[in-house]
């Protein structure tokens, strides 16, 4: 039990955070999937570990710097490439900007390589020697921090999107960019807000995931894949979708790896995704649809 529940919760939390970062951008841009998000995660994770090993700065500062790296990368991607591409390709759908984000994936991967090197950097877990035991489950302080952070971030983003003015602005712009422009809403600002949020969340994901397995410039693809799949399994229109999709994905990965062998997990995820897409395309958590006019 212990060997299953804790890893599922921990991996699920990391994946949910990555998926949430994708989702914010996806919703604010009206359907752009930013392939570079995994790279923001890597920049934060590698950056914080690199700083603490090279300079010996205290952990809160290196962690803050890591999150800052991810945020800068996300904002630079939006202002330098994704926003101009969205203006350029507005008539032909989201296709051009998406390809642009694939190029960004390489740009940030190489940036991470130039700044922090080629090899995986493994961070120190937070409060490494503190352990808990509750209701038969034993977990470390770091695992607890990961799970709690995911819950806090998910709830905060949900409240922000549903109940605050900037959050509603972001959703409105994503739903219908043209109508928002006509209404005089600050489209550019809403998108920048979304990328800011996505960058911070990706940064948190990176600094939390760094101590688990180590991050290398190429690790971004793993976050890209798990986040992408979790988002579409769970449903891309609701914050809860990211969490549910991530937990389902993590459960399959860990249960199948344990009982059938690691090789089977990719086949099972593929099969499950195809079945869900065919039978429940709106995802496991579907937004309540209003009547189309």
């Amino acid at each position, binding site marked *: 039990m212990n060997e299953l529940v804790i890893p599922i919760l921990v991996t699920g939390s990391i994946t949910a955070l990555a998926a949430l970062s994708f989702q914010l951008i996806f919703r604010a841009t009206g359907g752009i999937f930013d392939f570079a998000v995994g790279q923001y995660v890597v920049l934060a994770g590698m950056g914080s570990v690199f700083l603490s090993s090279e300079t010996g700065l205290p952990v809160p500062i290196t962690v803050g710097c890591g999150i800052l790296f991810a945020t800068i990368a996300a904002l630079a991607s939006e202002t330098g490439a994704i926003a101009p591409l969205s203006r350029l390709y507005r008539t032909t759908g989201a296709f051009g900007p998406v390809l*642009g984000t694939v190029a960004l994936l390489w740009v940030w991967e190489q940036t991470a390589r130039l700044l922090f090197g080629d090899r995986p950097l493994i961070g120190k877990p937070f409060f490494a020697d503190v352990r808990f035991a509750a209701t038969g489950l034993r977990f470390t302080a770091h695992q607890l921090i990961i799970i709690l952070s995911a819950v806090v971030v998910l709830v905060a983003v949900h409240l922000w999107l549903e109940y605050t003015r900037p959050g509603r602005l972001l959703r409105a712009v994503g739903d219908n960019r043209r109508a928002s422009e006509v209404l005089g809403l600050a489209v550019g600002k809403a998108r920048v807000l979304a990328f800011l949020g996505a960058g911070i969340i990706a940064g948190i994901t990176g600094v939390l995931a760094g101590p688990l397995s180590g991050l290398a410039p190429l690790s971004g693809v793993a976050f890209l894949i798990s986040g992408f799949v979790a988002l579409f399994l769970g449903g891309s229109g609701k914050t809860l979708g990211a969490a549910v999709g991530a937990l389902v994905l993590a459960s399959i990965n860990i249960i199948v790896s344990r009982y059938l062998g690691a090789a089977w997990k*990719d086949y099972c995820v*593929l099969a499950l*995704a195809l079945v869900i897409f065919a039978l429940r*395309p709106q995802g496991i958590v579907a937004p309540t649809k209003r009547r189309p*006019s």
Partner: protein
Amino acid sequence: MVKELLLNLTHGLRRAGGPLFLLVTLAYGLRDTVNTELVILLYVYALLGLAIYVPMILTDQVSLAYAAYAGIGGYSVAVLSASNVGAFWGVPIGVVLAGATAFLVALATSRLSSYFLAVGTLLVAIAFGRFLLQQADLTGGADGLTFTRQIFGIPVSTTALLIVGAVMIWIIVFALESLRRSEMGKGLHLMGGSRPAAESVGLNTVRFRILSLIFGAAIASLAGSLLAFSRGLVLPDSFHLELAFLILFIPLLGGKHTPWGCLVGSALLVYVLEVARSFGPGKLLYGLGVLACVLFFSGGIAERLGSALSALESKLQSKKIQTRDETPGVGVVPQPAEAERRETVSMNKVREAAASSPRPLIARGLSKTYGGVTALHDVSFELLQGEILGVVGPNGAGKTTLIDVLTGIQTGDSGEVVLQGNRLEGGASERALAGLSRTFQHPQLSGELTVGENIGLGLLRLHTSRSWIGMALQMMRSMFPTVKSGRDANDPITIEIGRKIGIEGLCEDMASTSFGTEKLTEIGRALISQPSVLLMDEPFAGLGKSEIDRVVDAVERWRQNALGVIIVDHNIDLLSGICDRLLVLDSGIVIACGRPSEVFSSPHVQKAYFGRE
């Protein structure tokens, strides 16, 4: 004299630039054995670019499995070479396996946005990579498989492979070029822009999307086989996810308006990758370079060269024309007599059908709910022969839903629609083929075609197949160079329709026309195939007085030949003037149906519109 020569040169370059470039690469590859491998790699990339040309450029779908499909082709050759079946049979077997995989993934994701295809295919790529590593007995694991390069016992030289690659590219480019120019290809293009519009001209968009993905997977598999033969070795690394991402850029870098762009794009890619390999941060520059290309050359390099050449050409030409006598226009002179004859034949058919059924369209008990909201409740009506039926009602009354359910864009919860005695089943495309044509509230046209070409697309309704095999054959037929290009501005039938509706400038690009012309073009597209019943969704919204008159004229003229017309609009005065009967909807319920004067005296209508009892 010099000008003449220059003109011929630029014209020739523009027309023959692609083949010329292919010959140059071939010559470069034949010169030296070191170059041969590089050029074969270039051809492999070009083939992969061509593989995604139809799904990505024509029908707007992003697939990330094309590296895996190439891998299937490569590994089939390597695996079968070791057995006594022989390497050659790996090529067709790879094509079949890749096609089957593409079919399954496309089937599961085909009704959804292209993101689901991207996720599904991303997982295919990962699962394939895992399979290669895990099934080491079959695939050799991380070390890959080495095999002797021979076909039926005869060794295969790299020179032979080079030539085979060039010929394959030549054939596929010409096939795609024909497809792009054909009516079918233009229909696929419309499908990439608007699925409902493509359905309304009778294209089963789900099946055509799947077919285009299968077609691409087959080409990708051939590319993989070529790569395997050229090296005598297959490795998991050759077909991993990064290749899948790279492929996406090939048609985009080269230019998406001609398949030759894939060759140019792949040359660029191979060259840049070679440079990148030679020094450290090469990939960073590469990423930035690709980004710059996407940003600044959104049409691709081949495109830029092509348009520069054609600008030069027209400059030279304008100077030349001044010195020459007036030459007659290039366009085909329309032959009204023939058009008239063809039209009479089809009109007669419509009239015969009309005579046999006095009530061409019957709707019984149509209901539709969205979540908890009822959009249509038990709507029944009959369309009488030759009549114009107007559907009116306040906002949210269910008018557009009624058209969507009748045409099959939305599936009704219950009820049936009977067209000329036949119960309509299936989706929008099948109903279009059965004889329902429609226009949309917001015109859904292809911005990259001309007005005339957009109108001509309506004719697809007359000869699109209903079966899988028929559709596949239709696509293949369109790839032969002998195929006629789609109807354009010079086609007599198009000209005739344009004249009737009152559109001038059939040669204009759709993107640069007015909203009124867009609406009229859609009506033209719906009418050109002589449908049994025409459904119009808010045809007058957003039009000026003179444009409204033209639409009314077109509808009035049309009613003389047709079985019936259904018009949904807000403009009640206008509808009262031209409609024989009005159907009034309120909250999804029919509250009145009859002659305009009767309808307005009905107390229910008074209440719905004026709030009076």
